[in-house]
């Protein structure tokens, strides 16, 4: 159990920070989209016998950047292109897996995930990645907040806001790939949105919002894992999401009463 507490604590930082960004930038569809798009990459990795997460990460990052490019150039919401690429990549993934005949446990674990899937090397990668995201956020927190608030003003100040957006989308894409093993493709958008949304409802300042978002994601993860530890019939991923939705409803009531 201690190891799960440690993993939950480590991944709460990137989840909380990214969730804050996704909610305030109102790009909730991106977590769902990139996770599904990565499915095509995971399938390709399985067929080629190369690390599925490595191939999935490349596909996710490239797709995230392509979606951002198309939405910036086409001046339309990212959500529209995510919708298209989501179906496209899932279709490719399903065809590849059907051709390879490798239906089975591996694929199922990508769809639904489990914290039990984590290996020691994966913990080290997650640890390094979480620290990197947290440090980057601490350094650039004001720039990131102003990128959400008024990107045009940053552009006038000579900051390359497109490069900034591409970098953030690439970081989100890599985080999603790391989290797929724990949360699964189906559940990932919940964990990436709920903490940010709850803290959006209950806090009055963006800095507190980030801290709350990190704390809530830790609370969601640890409660879900603990419940599934006590009641073995409860799988961890879905339990984490159900706990999160209960928290969300409570926060909504709290916000209305305020």
């Amino acid at each position, binding site marked *: 159990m201690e190891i799960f507490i440690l993993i939950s604590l480590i991944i709460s930082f990137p989840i909380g920070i990214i969730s804050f960004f996704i909610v*305030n930038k*109102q790009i909730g569809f991106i977590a769902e989209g990139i996770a599904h798009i990565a499915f095509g990459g995971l399938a390709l990795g399985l067929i080629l016998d190369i690390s599925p997460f490595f191939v999935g990460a490349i596909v996710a990052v490239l797709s995230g950047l392509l979606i951002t490019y198309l939405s910036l150039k086409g001046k339309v919401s990212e959500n529209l292109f995510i919708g298209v690429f989501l179906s496209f990549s899932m279709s490719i993934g399903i065809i590849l897996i059907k051709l390879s005949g490798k239906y089975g446990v591996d694929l199922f674990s990508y769809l639904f995930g489990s914290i039990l899937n984590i290996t020691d090397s994966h913990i080290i990668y997650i640890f390094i990645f979480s620290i990197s995201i947290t440090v980057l956020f601490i350094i650039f927190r*004001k720039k990131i*907040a102003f990128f959400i*608030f008024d990107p*045009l*003003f940053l552009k006038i100040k000579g900051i390359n806001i497109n490069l900034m957006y591409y970098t953030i989308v690439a970081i989100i894409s890599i985080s999603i790939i790391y989290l797929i093993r724990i949360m699964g493709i189906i559940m990932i958008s919940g964990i990436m949105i709920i903490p940010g949304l709850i803290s959006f409802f209950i*806090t009055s300042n963006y800095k507190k919002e980030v801290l709350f978002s990190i704390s809530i994601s830790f609370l969601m993860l640890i409660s879900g894992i603990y419940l599934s530890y006590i009641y073995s019939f409860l799988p961890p991923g879905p339990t984490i999401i159900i706990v999160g939705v209960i928290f969300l409803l409570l926060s909504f009531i709290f916000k209305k009463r305020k």
Partner: protein
Amino acid sequence: MLLKVENISFIYKNEKILEDISFNLDKGETLFIIGPNGGGKTTLVKIILSLLKPDSGKVIINEQSLSESKIKIGYLPQLISHEGINDKIKIPVYEIIEQGLDNLKSKKENKNKIFEISKKLNIENLIYKTFNKLSGGQKQRVLLARALINNPELLILDEPNTGLDYLNQTFIFDIIEEIRKNQQTATIIITHDISLIPKKAIRVACLYKKIHIHNKPDELLECPVINKTMEKGMEILLHGSGKPHRIIERH
């Protein structure tokens, strides 16, 4: 000459938005640009700020391009559209004004500057509130503080009066005039409301694809595109003072 706009043309989806726009602006000068919605006012501002590339022509600042000139620019976006502004994020007013500073100095120095400009704009009591909680007039003052804190050499205000009551409008215009006088700031004020133009305004430009510069507000009456700047049924009259006013219908 601080700002030279030379033969700017801009085409969007095969439609000419701006056609051969040229004008100059010197230190301490104010140019009012009036024009109807869709007349190209905001496009022109974006070209001056290097946010859009013109199809032809160029913008020269102190004999250089904008990026080379390193000029200090203050910009106030439109309040209503607030293009690009997402005020759902809860950012304290203090940090928004701080964003306008080019060279971040010591914390104490920055704090003093932020309080100084906040006092001038009468928003010192809002400094630790978040932007999303403010009224339209308060938001406009905060964004103006951000535009002014750096002592800009060129100040561009896009519809600074939109959504504001008369008192807020007068207050903001008095501050802008005071800064222009004291700091010799070159100022461009974009508006669609002709009644805002003060009597002593020396230069007024009508913009509707093409630009027509007038050196006195009363010359506006002869401007070939002035009717396009007003809603249907409106007419311009001059006050005895020479200040143009719009009226809804002549009785």
